[in-house]
Every structure is written in structure tokens, then in C-alpha cells.
């Protein structure tokens, strides 16, 4: 058994301090140590994108990082976007455009899109499709996700 390492990390604006086994994946840390279960795990080999979170405001696969590497960094998960009562405009757009079905891949897609829309506020359809091509969704066929992103882009600009 390896030694435990201290991790001090800011998640959704809140500071957390934990001792972790260095092999603990960041995805497992967020879900099972911090209990932020909105970040989902679909493949643990970096293909499906369900576990995407913002790491220092960049989208990363949390299954391809160790929790210990988050020491001193800032993470935003889907729980850091909006609340059920006050959804983030991107979340609202997903609801209005029916951009989700089972909802399992959705948090990862939202976290991929937040920085995308920041750097590309008026994307066209092919840019949107390319932006989410690292996120697998088995339910929607992506069409309504694309619609949702267009809607969100309008919402965020007004």
C-alpha cells in the first residue's frame, strides 16, 4: 500500500483537503470522496467523455488524472453550473431543446461546452459537432444537443 498524499483542491469554489492514495483517479475522488456524483464515469480510458470536468478552466477527462495531481488546482464540475431552481443558460437550453435523454453523458457534455462557448460564442453546426466529438452519447443521436448548443449560444450572447 502506498503512502497517502495530502490534496488541497478548490472544487466549485469550495476548498477541500483530503488524504489520498496516489492511484486514486480524479473521477473517483470527485464522485466518492467529495460526493459530487454528477460527474459520470463511462469508460475509464479516455474515450467517452462522460467524466469531463474543468481543471483550471480547461476541459479534461477526470478518469485520466490522479486526484493527487489536483493539489493546488481548481476544478469545476457540473454541480458548479446551475441549480435545479436556477439552471445555467446552457442547462436551460438543453432542457428546451431536448438535448438529453438518459442524461448520463450530459454532465460531461456540458463541461465540454462551457469553455467551448466561452472561446467560440457563435459556433456553426460543424464547429459544434467537432467540439463534442470527444463525447459519446448513445441516446440522442446528437441532433438535439447541437440544437441546444445553438440555443445556448443565443442565450449567452443576450
Amino acid at each position, binding site marked *: *500500500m*502506498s*503512502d497517502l*498524499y495530502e490534496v488541497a483542491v478548490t472544487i466549485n469554489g469550495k476548498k477541500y483537503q483530503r488524504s489520498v*492514495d*496516489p*492511484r486514486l*483517479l480524479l473521477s*473517483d475522488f470527485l464522485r466518492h470522496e467529495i460526493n459530487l456524483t454528477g460527474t459520470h464515469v463511462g469508460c*475509464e*480510458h*479516455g*474515450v467517452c*467523455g462522460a467524466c*469531463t470536468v474543468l*481543471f483550471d478552466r*480547461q*476541459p*479534461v*477527462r477526470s*478518469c*485520466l*488524472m*490522479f486526484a*493527487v*495531481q489536483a*493539489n493546488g488546482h481548481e476544478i469545476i464540475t457540473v454541480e458548479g453550473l446551475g441549480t435545479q431552481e436556477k439552471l445555467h443558460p446552457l442547462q436551460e437550453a438543453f432542457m428546451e431543446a431536448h438535448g438529453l435523454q438518459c442524461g448520463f453523458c450530459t454532465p460531461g457534455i456540458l463541461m*465540454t461546452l462551457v469553455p*467551448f462557448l466561452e472561446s467560440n460564442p457563435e459556433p456553426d453546426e460543424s464547429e459544434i459537432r*467537432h*467540439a463534442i*466529438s*470527444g463525447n459519446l452519447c448513445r441516446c440522442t443521436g446528437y441532433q438535439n444537443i447541437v440544437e441546444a448548443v445553438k440555443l445556448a449560444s443565443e442565450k449567452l450572447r443576450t
Partner: protein
Amino acid sequence: MKPAPFDYYAPTTIEEALSLLARYGYDAKALAGGQSLIPMMNFRLAQPSVLIDLNNIPDLFFIRVAQEGGLRLGAMTRHAQVERDPLIAERVPLIFETMPKIATPQIRSRGTFGGSISHADPSAELVTVSVILDGSFRLRSQAGDRWVPAREFFIGMFTTQLEPDELLTEIAFPPLQPRSGWALLEISRRPHDFALVGVAVVVNLDEDHRCHNARIGLLSVGDGPVEAHRAAEALIGQAPTSAAIQAAAEIAAAEDIDPSSDIHASAGYRRQLVKVLTRRALSLAFERASTKPY
């Protein structure tokens, strides 16, 4: 799919990292972006007993202009950084064009230039591109400090000149020659998949608009980056007509490669793709060479 246990070190200087590498040798694995290593650890195919995390070494993160006009990158420079840096777009446009083709945005946020080079996957874009751009790599250990040209660095699949106590710390690219053109074309099943075949090309025209130099690098057709030397030679001194390009493409497919088969592409299909993509990439590159300021 959880990794096996390991000891973890997070050095903050290159010297510290080198000393750890010297101490642990083959037991240790340097952790750069981890976007290839960690999946293998999750599958438990890789079980290093020591991980030396390079993510906290500020000296490994930089992009700067070299004295001779080329470019230098710290080995830990992340793909996303390279993708956005205007210096890259200006000085090594082929790399600029390559970046969005590497994996997915999430992988590029984390993955690093040096990590990709050290991993030496024959399907990795930067591996082949760095060869045809005549890049070179700085390898440091406690005992030494050497520069190795990219074309000598890659030995075979996942195999490089790196010794167990060495670390790739820096990558250098020379400036492009005037009247140069470039292109990278790939065929992959889905955008973020490894290319079934990729062709990276840099060409250079002389003052008479004949091909002065051509470099053709192929992805996913060998155990490392493969240069289509014969195809390139066939172009030298030629006007870049479609017939000359077609001839070169056919040479590349017939003589320069010995591709393998896998479940996504047979060797025969790979040859076909090499032929088609080489032709298309050369056409694009020559067109750029005659119209762009390089």
C-alpha cells in the same frame, strides 16, 4: 479498471526529476500528460511502481523563438497551448494545422508535446511531423545533456533513444525555408480515432518553381514514423505537376512502406490510403508553396 498501486513523486525542478529517474530507472515512469499512460494503467497493462509527475516543473512549460528563427518548446507544453499559440501558427504552420487533429479537446487540454514524442506511437501525428520538420529533442540526465535529431530518435514502436535515466526536456524546430508548403491529411474512422493512415508533407520549391526538397512522413504504416524517401526523391527537380505528384504517390504506396493489418484496415487498404493521401497532401502542399510567403 483501476490502476495498480505505485509510489508517487512530484518534483518541482528538472534536476529533482533527473535525480529520481537516476534512482529508480526502469521501475519509474515519467508522467507527462498521462493521456496514453493512464488508460494503460487503468487497464492494468502498465503497472509502473514509481510515477514521477512532471506537471509541477515550471521549466518544462514554454514556447519561445529560437535564435536561428525556429522555435523551442518545453516538453510539457500542453497540446491546447500549442494549438492556440500564434508563434506556432506563424513559425511552424504544419504543427498548427496538426494540433486540432490530435485526439479530442479534453485530451489536448492535458496531453503534452513531449509526452507524445516520448511515447513514440507510430500513429501519433507529432511523431511523424517532428521528423519531417527536422525537429530535434533535448535529452537530459544527471550524467549528460544531448540533442538528438527526430529522424534518429525514434527506433520502433514505443521505442526511442531515451535511456531510463533520461528525460526529454525540450523540442526544437528550425525555421521553414522560403517557398515551402505543407499539409497533413488523415483518414480516421471517427475524428478522434487514431488515423488509419496519415500523411504529413513539407515541400520546398526552388526559384524556378521546381521541387527543391520534399519530405513525406507517414503515420500508422510502420513501427514508427515512416518517411517515404523514394517518393520524395522522385519529386526533386520536378515541376509539381499532377503527373509528378501522382507518380510520387504511387511510389510511396508501392515502395516506401510495409504496412500491417489490424481490425480497422488491412495492409492493402492502407497502401491505397497512402497513395490517395500522399497525392492529395502533396497537391495541397505544392499549392501552398507557390502561394504562401514561406
